[in-house]
């Protein structure tokens, strides 16, 4: 009979290391959430398409709705709840106010590890 204790303990050590990996990979440091920088153009207007809390969670749904409306129905005007009109456009509307894509959109996206492929085709007017 062989003694398998070393093998089993090695297995358990690997298990615990994997299971606790987020703790030691971050090494107990606190890490602040990013604060997206609001561009002067946006602050001047003072309003977004929807209230801030909703924009935070649902802006990608808004964009999806806009895209479908424009591409499928040719309908380019959006009227929000408070009656304001917006031209449904990613580069020409969102980025008209949020002129600082890198400091605004990307800040959150890097933190949340989302990499919207939209920019394969759409442009950031400032980068042009």
């Amino acid at each position, binding site marked *: *009979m062989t003694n*398998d*204790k070393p093998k*089993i303990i090695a*297995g*358990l050590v690997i*298990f*615990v290391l994997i*299971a*606790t990996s*987020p*703790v030691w*990979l*971050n090494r*107990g*440091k*606190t*890490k602040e*959430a*990013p604060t997206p920088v609001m561009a002067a153009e946006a602050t001047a207007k003072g309003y977004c398409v929807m209230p801030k*809390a909703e924009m*935070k*969670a*649902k802006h*990608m*749904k808004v*964009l*999806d709705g806009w895209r479908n409306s424009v591409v499928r129905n040719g309908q380019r005007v959006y009227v929000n709840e408070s009656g304001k009109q917006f031209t449904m456009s990613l580069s020409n509307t969102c980025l008209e106010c949020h002129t600082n894509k890198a400091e605004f959109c990307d800040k*959150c996206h*890097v*933190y*949340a*590890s*989302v*990499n*919207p*492929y939209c920019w394969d085709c759409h442009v950031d007017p400032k980068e042009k």
Partner: protein
Amino acid sequence: MNVQYMSALIAVVVLGFLAYIGTEFLGLNSLFGIFIPYLAVCFFLVGAILKVMKWAKSPVPFRIPTTCGQQKSLDWIEQNKIDNPSTTPGVIARMFFEVLLFRSLFRNTKAGIKEGKITYEWEIFLWVGALAFHYSFLTVLVRHMRFFLEPVPGLIGIVETLDGFFQVGTPGVLLSGVVLLGAVLFLLSRRLLIPQVRYISLMADYFPLFLIIGIAGTGIYMRYFARVDVVAIKQLAMSLVTLHPAIPQNVTVSGILYVHLFLVSVLFAYFPLSKLMHMGGVFLSPTRNLANNSRMERHINPWNPDLKFHTYEAYENDFREKMIEAGLPVEKEA
């Protein structure tokens, strides 16, 4: 209706409501967001280690592998080196296929009666369902690491891109989450619809299924329907893993997230107590992890009592002359 699945279903629904009511109406956010998750992880780690140590203490004196092919024999008989391994590399190959591809489940058969005869048919769908379930679960877990690591490693981004390959809508549909829910529903329906399987299914079989359906269901609901503030949730998750737990202020972490998190906590805490421990058990299965070398090596039971035997050799020594006289054959002449 059947008490086994109804009680499991009710238990999961009640647990979900507990977390929702506790955080949306009673303000118990720290309980459900911090204490219970921490407690659950401790339970999971300590419980799993204790269980494996308990199993490790069981002596395995003899070779009891299930043999699924020709064992090592004469040179001109071909051995099935994976399904009936006689060496350590063979065992490693066998464990590799068992753990990563569920090889023994692949051989699943279904008994039935055809034209009055018992028949055994190959039944592959349990294997397909199990494989889809485990791998989508793994992918979802790996992708979730984006909430727990900062900066997020590039590898996780690659997994996300591959998982969102079809680029359907925004936020993009992630295949693994959908496959996970589909696969658990399939595994559940198998238990509910096949009478023989339903007959041997207990609450302990249904409970993890409903729990995982609840987890995947709330996750999919959060991502595609309700939409939650992912940045706030990552703040909470990061506070947990950096050991500076805090419920994020000034932002709302949705009640559904607490349901999701609480069901995950229950799953983790329940894990070491349940059949889910097959995650560790598969490595310790003597029917899988032993080489079949019983005909090459003598395995002696180490806790055999130290008995005094009268061996045949000693017997012959005692009676050799008399045996020769009586014309009985002896092994050693005088």
